[in-house]
């Protein structure tokens, strides 16, 4: 969705405005599809569906019977040879964009020979053989405790299992391994030498064998969360051992405060920094000198405070007084953002009629902006509800929206600096650039890894370590 296709390349000033407009559009679209989303990244990750039950479309020629709840498997007759295994696959392949996948079976009845198996197969698997007996399939067998991974001969792996046991099969995408558990304890793991999606599979092969399957609807016997934390911790140790420059974090926080105009905080932060033991000395950054980041610090702070208190008219007049070039083009994106915010503030104060009049007189001239339709629709929708904050467009009334506008104005003011060398430095703080880079790198790494494994999620970092 590039602005360049709908109109000619916007002037440099509007590049900044367009960036923030784009950000707003993104939030609007994300929330439109899934209103309860708190984190956009969580939304993207949850798009992948998980197996929920056994598949009944591709049956294995009637050797086994899938129960009506599609979560159990029974072998009613007597088996005669090696090609009448009762196999059932899950209704979907295991999701890949995560650290681990896991499911469990419970052996209700080991039947006459206990020839049960749990494992993973591909969509090409012949559903009359035990998982592990054919190429590109893996199976942990209950009768001999062996792991079969593509040939008739298995490897010694773990204990046998029988009636009453709960056995689990899992995938660790970080280590590219399958792992299996018995009654809550890991029995072993094996390298996953299969590319592409794999499907959780169970099999039964002697008379009266019966298993039930749990794809996560019920709690697992195995403590998956603890195992996940353990696996993450292993990776974390490697990362923790990396050294970073002594005061890197301090410098980044300082530049963050400067960038967004948190003047008072910066003052106190600097004072504290000087009295630490030993006092922190920062190497001056090249490219964006101290002067540049301190540019108009007080003015930017004032403007942010105005917007955060909803005083949009005052914001306009202050901008016209101090930085007329930022708002002189009345059809620019930044003006659009400010006018929308004014509309939102009027709705917040309950002045609905005034809001409508305002919208009618101001919105028309922004028709050419991309994203205009959806965003104005969102704003207008606020009028339809008695309690707009609880509606699907309630996000407009939250602090985050004011924050967006404040950040946009902040960037615009930074761009008026005559000494500025690179306009893109106005839009993102150093911290933001670092977060974007680490996110993009993780995504690229995953994509080169067959799209398997976790992406970087800032929300997870923020939530980690919270106790109680």
């Amino acid at each position, binding site marked *: 969705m590039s602005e360049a296709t709908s109109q000619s390349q916007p002037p440099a000033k509007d590049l900044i405005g367009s960036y923030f407009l784009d*950000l707003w559009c993104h*939030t609007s679209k994300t929330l439109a599809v899934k209103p309860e989303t708190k984190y*956009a990244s969580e939304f993207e990750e949850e798009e992948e569906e998980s197996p929920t039950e056994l598949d009944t479309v591709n049956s294995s020629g009637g050797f086994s019977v899938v129960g009506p709840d599609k979560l159990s498997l029974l072998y009613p007759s007597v088996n005669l040879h090696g090609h009448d295994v009762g196999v059932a696959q899950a209704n979907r392949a295991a999701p890949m964009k995560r650290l681990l996948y896991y499911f469990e079976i419970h052996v209700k009845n080991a039947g006459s020979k206990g020839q049960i198996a749990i494992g993973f197969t591909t969509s090409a698997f012949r559903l009359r053989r035990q998982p592990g007996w054919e190429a590109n399939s893996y199976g942990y067998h209950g009768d001999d405790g062996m792991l079969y991974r593509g040939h008739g001969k298995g490897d010694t792996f773990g204990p046998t299992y029988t009636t009453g046991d709960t056995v689990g099969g899992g995938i660790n995408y970080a280590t590219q391994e399958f792992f299996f558990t018995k009654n809550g304890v890991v029995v072993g793991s094996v390298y996953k030498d299969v590319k592409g999606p794999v499907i959780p599979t169970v099999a039964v092969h002697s008379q009266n064998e019966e298993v039930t399957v749990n794809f996560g609807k019920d709690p697992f016997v195995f403590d998956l969360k603890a195992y996940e934390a353990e696996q993450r911790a292993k990776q974390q140790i490697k*990362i923790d051992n*990396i050294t*970073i*420059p002594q005061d*890197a*974090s301090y*410098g*980044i*926080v300082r*530049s*963050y*405060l400067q960038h967004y105009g*948190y*003047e*008072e*905080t910066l003052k*106190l*932060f600097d004072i*504290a920094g000087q009295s630490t*033991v*030993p006092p922190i000395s*920062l190497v001056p*950054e*090249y*490219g*964006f000198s101290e002067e540049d980041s301190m540019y108009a610090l007080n003015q930017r*702070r004032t403007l942010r405070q105005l917007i*955060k208190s909803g005083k949009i008219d005052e914001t306009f007049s202050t901008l016209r007084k101090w930085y007329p070039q930022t708002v002189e083009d009345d059809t620019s994106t930044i003006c659009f953002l400010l006018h929308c915010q004014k509309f939102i503030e009027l709705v917040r104060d309950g002045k609905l009629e005034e809001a409508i009049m305002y919208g009618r007189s101001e919105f028309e001239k922004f028709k050419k902006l991309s994203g205009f339709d959806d965003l104005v629709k969102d704003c207008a929708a606020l009028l339809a509800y008695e309690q707009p904050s609880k509606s699907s467009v309630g996000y407009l009334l939250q*602090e*985050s929206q004011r*924050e*967006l506008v404040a*950040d946009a104005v902040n960037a615009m003011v930074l761009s008026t600096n005559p000494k500025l060398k690179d306009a893109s430095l106005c839009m993102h*703080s*150093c*911290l*933001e*650039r*670092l*977060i*974007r*880079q*680490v*996110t*993009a*790198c993780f*995504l*690229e*790494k995953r994509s*080169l890894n067959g799209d398997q494994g976790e992406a*970087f999620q*800032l*929300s997870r*970092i*923020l939530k*980690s*370590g919270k106790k109680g």
Partner: protein
Amino acid sequence: MSLFWIVIRQLAEIQAMATSKKVITRADWEKKLNDVKVRKEDMNKLVMNFLVTEGYVEAAEKFRLESGTEPDIDLATITDRMAVKKAVQSGNVEDAIEKVNDLNPEILDTNPQLFFHLQQQRLIELIRNGKVEEALEFAQEELAPRGEENQGFLEELERTVALLAFEDVSNCPVGELLDISQRLKTASEVNAAILTSQSHEKDPKLPSLLKMLIWVQTQLDEKASYPRINDLSTAVLEDPAV
């Protein structure tokens, strides 16, 4: 061309294919970066977490007002913690120990190693101030019993007492104990113990994020050639060397 050279050339081609990496241009990479949307709220939380964990109380309070971000820990507890840290950093270990016990007497009870390090620091300060007799008395009465319980403590104790044996302490093998870095180490330990006792993570999350960046870039280097960030303080993209 002789067979020899044909073979060499083919081997070189195979080598190149085996080590060939995906090349991502600056323009493509910037598109990928632009697809990443970072929430301002989350960045504010990271900064607040840094201010709070490192103990910048006044700055944290002001940041809460200026940004509307709620700290994830009661700011009042930070002041107490910082007073302890400062006391150790200035060499007032007795004062620090008193303050820690006022805050939470269980901290030192459940942390024998921390308590030993604090006592060791006391000893170092006595030696630094030339109070030799007092130092020896203190070492024998307070530290020796701890040393008997734990081999590691005993070794540390012996190292510390060794300071007394040298005329020119700044040049002796255990001279580093007198260095300010030793105070800082102990101060850090106390800070971490207090944070843990308050069920708070003892390290801020920001450095972790920086380490992850370095780690993932190293990992990605094996498979792709792309613009990197090599300087954390400027976060400027550098095109890959050709």
